[in-house]
């Protein structure tokens, strides 16, 4: 084993950076293979990170972009709250408190200190979405929650493993408050297992390079990312750029809730000022501060170089200002479960809209920005077992200055995969009657948006309890520079024997047509979930005839719509 005394050069830095990212990826692989919930293993809704002892994020492999914010803050705040002295070798801390740096309650972080020669050198952490954490709604996605207490079990940073030993009392509390404790047990162990993988790899890296050399390298890597990010921001014209959008309702009332941004680009820095946004909503669409920060970072990352190592350094030149107690910085005991799935992409889209005024060629029109969260659970008629599932959809993405938007994509805050029909129907008592792209749902433009998806489900069990949390059913993904809006989302239901579909408000009298919990469907009932299309970029008149004709030939647009949107005549 060599002990390095010299200062790291740029080649060594590249190598160390790769090694850190690879450790995070290994954590992810271990996690994916052992976890229970499809949200982990099919959807990959988790992130793995390495921190310096000072709480700076130095390496990460985010499998789900939304967590880049919580990764940044939750670890730092946890270290500050508990104090470095609290950590001992073999400890694992668990934490899902949205007011202490998590994106929403289902997101759980496990954190482990890495010691060498009795000195704390690094932290490894893993943040992941636990599928069921109790609360009023099965699947812990309470679309009509008004307080955090309805959303499930909240845990401040607590040790679940102390010096290598399970803290049994804490485990008992957790497992007796979740509806599917076996899954929680398996998922939490998958998370802890991944920390052990990372700890071992970090230890061999420490031995190879020596702790001092790695600490130097960490500092240089943070500075390197900061330097590069500053150079990228310097290339964006200075100015104050404004944009806004709204959540169509909060699930309790029917009024829109506004997100208002003043984006200030000054030389090498960006300030995102959200302080004009609406006050905290009663329903669960509030974003935690880290969600707002993550969504802002995500937008900035979209218009800067892909290769900047994503450590804390690259976020130093970006500041996010929010008013505590507002829709972009929820205060206790406000509800926030939908803030991470619905409000997050809206915030990201607003930042992109502001940036489009500064760097139009690097931006895109709005995407669908709703996950169309659809939750269900019950007793499976064939196994007699209790199940829950968190189902979501992809949507159309916005067009860019260079090409059409992608169709049916996970909204920007996640990067989750869909569940195959054959897996879905094997596990849950539904028959899928159709899963397709929606014709004419793309916003027209020189480049058109992506298409949304259409799914029609038939209930085949005596009873299924369903909940939903959608947005953009009354609003739409906007076009840019003359491009048209995409089509809105839809959530419709039809009772057995009925001939036509209606909204849940019409059929079941829910307060909101798209944000509700615990509606009971019966065998033979049908549900239609249609996700929104993306906005177009540039005026439709600029679209080439060849592109319009190709869309007609492939069935993406009907002749009538082509005539209406583009004035196309055969």
């Amino acid at each position, binding site marked *: 084993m060599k002990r390095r005394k010299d200062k790291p050069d740029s080649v060594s*830095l590249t190598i160390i950076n790769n090694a850190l990212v690879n450790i995070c990826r290994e954590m992810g692989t*271990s996690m994916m293979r052992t976890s229970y919930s499809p949200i982990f*293993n099919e959807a990959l809704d988790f992130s793995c990170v390495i921190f310096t002892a000072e709480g700076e994020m130095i390496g990460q492999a985010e499998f789900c972009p939304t967590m880049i914010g919580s990764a940044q803050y939750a670890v730092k705040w946890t270290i500050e709250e508990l104090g470095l002295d609290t950590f001992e070798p073999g400890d694992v801390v668990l934490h899902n408190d949205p007011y202490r740096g998590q994106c929403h309650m289902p997101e759980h972080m496990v954190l482990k200190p890495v010691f060498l020669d009795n000195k704390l050198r690094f932290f490894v952490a893993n943040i992941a979405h636990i599928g069921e954490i109790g609360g009023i709604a099965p699947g812990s996605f309470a679309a009509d929650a008004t307080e955090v207490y309805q959303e499930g079990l909240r845990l401040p940073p607590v040790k679940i493993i102390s010096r290598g030993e399970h803290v049994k009392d804490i485990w008992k509390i957790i497992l007796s408050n979740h509806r599917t404790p*076996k899954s929680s047990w398996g998922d939490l162990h998958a998370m802890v297992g991944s920390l052990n993988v990372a700890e071992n790899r970090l230890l061999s890296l420490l031995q190879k390079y020596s702790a001092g050399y790695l600490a130097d390298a960490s500092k240089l890597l943070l500075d390197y990312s900061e330097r590069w990010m500053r150079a990228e921001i310097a290339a964006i014209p200075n100015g104050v750029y404004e944009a806004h959008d709204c959540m169509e309702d909060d699930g309790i009332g029917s009024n829109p809730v506004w997100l208002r941004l003043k984006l200030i680009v000054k030389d090498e820095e960006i300030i995102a000022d959200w302080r004009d946004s609406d006050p905290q909503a009663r329903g669960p669409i509030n974003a935690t501060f880290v969600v707002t920060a993550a969504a802002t970072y995500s937008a900035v990352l979209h218009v800067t170089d892909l290769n900047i190592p994503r450590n804390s350094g690259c976020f130093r030149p970006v500041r996010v200002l929010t008013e505590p107690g507002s829709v972009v910085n929820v205060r206790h005991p406000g509800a926030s479960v939908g803030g991470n799935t619905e409000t997050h992409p809206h915030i990201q889209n607003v930042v992109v809209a502001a940036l489009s005024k500064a760097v139009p060629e690097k931006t895109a029109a709005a995407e669908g920005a709703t996950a169309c969260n659809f939750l269900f659970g019950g007793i499976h008629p064939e196994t007699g077992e209790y199940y829950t599932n968190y189902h979501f959809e*992809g949507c159309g993405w916005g067009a860019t200055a260079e090409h059409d938007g992608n169709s049916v994509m996970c909204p920007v805050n996640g990067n989750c995969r*869909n569940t*195959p029909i054959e897996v879905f129907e*094997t596990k849950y008592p539904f028959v899928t*009657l159709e899963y397709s792209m929606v014709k004419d749902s793309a916003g027209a433009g020189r480049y058109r948006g992506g298409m949304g998806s259409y799914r029609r489900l038939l209930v085949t069990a005596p009873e299924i309890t369903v909940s939903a949390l959608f947005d953009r059913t009354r609003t739409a993904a906007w076009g840019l520079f003359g491009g048209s809006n995409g089509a809105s989302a839809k959530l419709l239901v039809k009772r057995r024997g009925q001939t036509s579909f209606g909204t849940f408000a019409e059929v079941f009298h829910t307060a909101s047509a798209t944000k509700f919990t615990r509606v009971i469907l019966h065998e033979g009932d049908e549900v239609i979930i249609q996700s929104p299309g993306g906005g177009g970029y540039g005026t439709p008149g600029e679209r080439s005839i060849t592109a319009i004709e190709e869309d007609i030939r492939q069935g*993406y647009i009907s002749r009538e719509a082509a005539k209406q949107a583009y004035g196309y005549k055969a």
Partner: protein
Amino acid sequence: MQTKSRVRCGIDTGGTFTDLVAVDEMTGRLSVSKFPSNPKHPGQAIDGVLKEANLSDGSIESVVLGTTLGLNALLERKGSRVLFLTTRGFEDVLFIQRMNRRYHYSFKWMKPSPFVERCDCIGVEERINARGQILTSLCEKELERVAETIGSKLTEYSGESLSIAVCFLFSYLNPAHELLLKAFLSKRYPQIPISLSHIVAPIWREYERSSTVVVDAFVRPILDDYLKDVGATIRKLGRTTRWTIMKSNGGHADAEVVREQPICTVLSGLSGGAIGAKYFGALVNETNLVTLDMGGTSCDVSLIQDGTLSQVSHYEFDWGIPISAPFLDVSSLGAGGGSIAWVDKGGFLKVGPQSAGASPGPACYDQGGTNPTVTDANLVLGRLNAGYFLGGKMKLNAQRAKEAVQQLATRLRLDCAATAQAIVDVAEENMANAIRVISVDRGIDPRNYALVACGGAGPLHACGIAEKVGMHRIVVPLHPGLCSAFGTLIADFKVDKTLSQYFRSTNVSARIVAKVFRTMVESALREVRAEGYQGKPKIERWVSMRYAGQNYEHDVRVEAVAIDTKELRRIFEHFHLLHKRFYGYSIGDEIIELICFKVSIVGKRPQLRLPDLPRGTPKGPKLKREVYLPGKGFAAYPIYNRDTLITGSILKGPAILEEKDSTIFLHPGHKLSVNRKGVITITL
């Protein structure tokens, strides 16, 4: 005419060269040759290598052919127009894909296009449910309507090569509708080939199965043309010459068999290299190996554990376009001699994945390339011999290499040699990482493995890579540049079957499991016979299992010949054990799900007898050359000709060994020895 010879021959058709390795089983004589490939007439290059090796006289008993044509057809998207028939309502499955994206923060990324146009995706009124029961029958009227639709497509696309791919939901549970449709259509349109998803890939997940069956249909005509062209060449050799085609799973099969399963040959070229490497490892008694095959544009790595190459059932040659078929677990990264070195915006040195390719190639090829590549760096450092590249067939221009590297040196504020050294370091670190990914990711410590260095550039970097990974032994095969052809020469017969069938430990009996395996083994045996294997094959069976609720499976091997209640219980217990070993915990009372059944049948080929090296006294180095070493600068070090080594030769680094198709760079302190067959072992 040599009546006493019995020549076995392996030929690898690569993108630029076609390689041949042949062994006369009577005399042990080994011949090798190389000829430029001709993608339009692959038979011509095969004729070329045979002539060059003086093997066109009918003395050949058997030929095994590996080819990258299938893969190239996919990469270049030059295949058949595919009509995709699927359950109505699900025509967009290939376009929706899995909804995820390759990069988190990019507006530029576009979803990959499937190998079919959306307007050629045709919905068929039929439906089978998750229990395999028919919900909507496929009726005569619907068959007639589908046939009509295809009729009009035929008119629309007259003159194009057409094939049909069918994927119905849950066909892996109940294939009745796929079979019915094929029977009907092949009567109506006997000229159009039809691929069925439950035959090509009987697995669950409709996107992965659809994608696979479409790729199968897409490459069908390419493979067909290849087989026709090559067949004509081989038949000229004489009636008795047997010829078979290398499959992606590392086995090989009769032409008539692979013609029906094009999907099985798409990675035919990659598997040859790994098999060759495994063979040479065994010759020096190494059974735990990491193989590294580094050529001009890419570097393939694989892992051999206890003499076994691991196998995967899923491959993505293009991000997001999966192919589910048995493949040897070979991963490919864009790091070869032609990989270009560059400085990113933050000032870091990067190497690849962009490559200068074969044309214009590295700057030193003097064909107009100006970007510094790994080959240029090696030339600057004195590790390559400008006058002996490809045995002197190609002259390298050292001045051009220096100019190219100097551009970077200026930007990095280093001198030219230090820059070249940094390029080599970064490239070697990339490859070291690839080795860690295939080993450490799976809980295997590569430091206990030997590295087999193949390809023209593998032996040049092996010492550096092994040092970085912490490995202690390196094996350099005979003719490292021809390792793929060597692999095809020694490949066994091999049939792999996978079947998705869902059971739970609570509702499955030993009788059911036995029945599933019986059917699978019978069909696999029929296949291996049809492929041309005569002997008694080795049969292996696995069940893929997981805890109810988990999503990824572990394979547990079936050990008893007859599966009874006791064996089934042992299988379940073994699963708990495996889970504990891999992830540190098991759940004894949890229900276990049986997801998938696998059968593998291997028909061993007779061992190859290689000639011994001639005895005699070793020759010294042919010359000394200025070579750069980090920290020491340039100094004269000995250069050997590998052909002059004899059994038992021992060399100490620093030294360079040159041969026609490769160069070995022996680092200071490393020791090299040669065994009786000429295989080199390096000890670090």
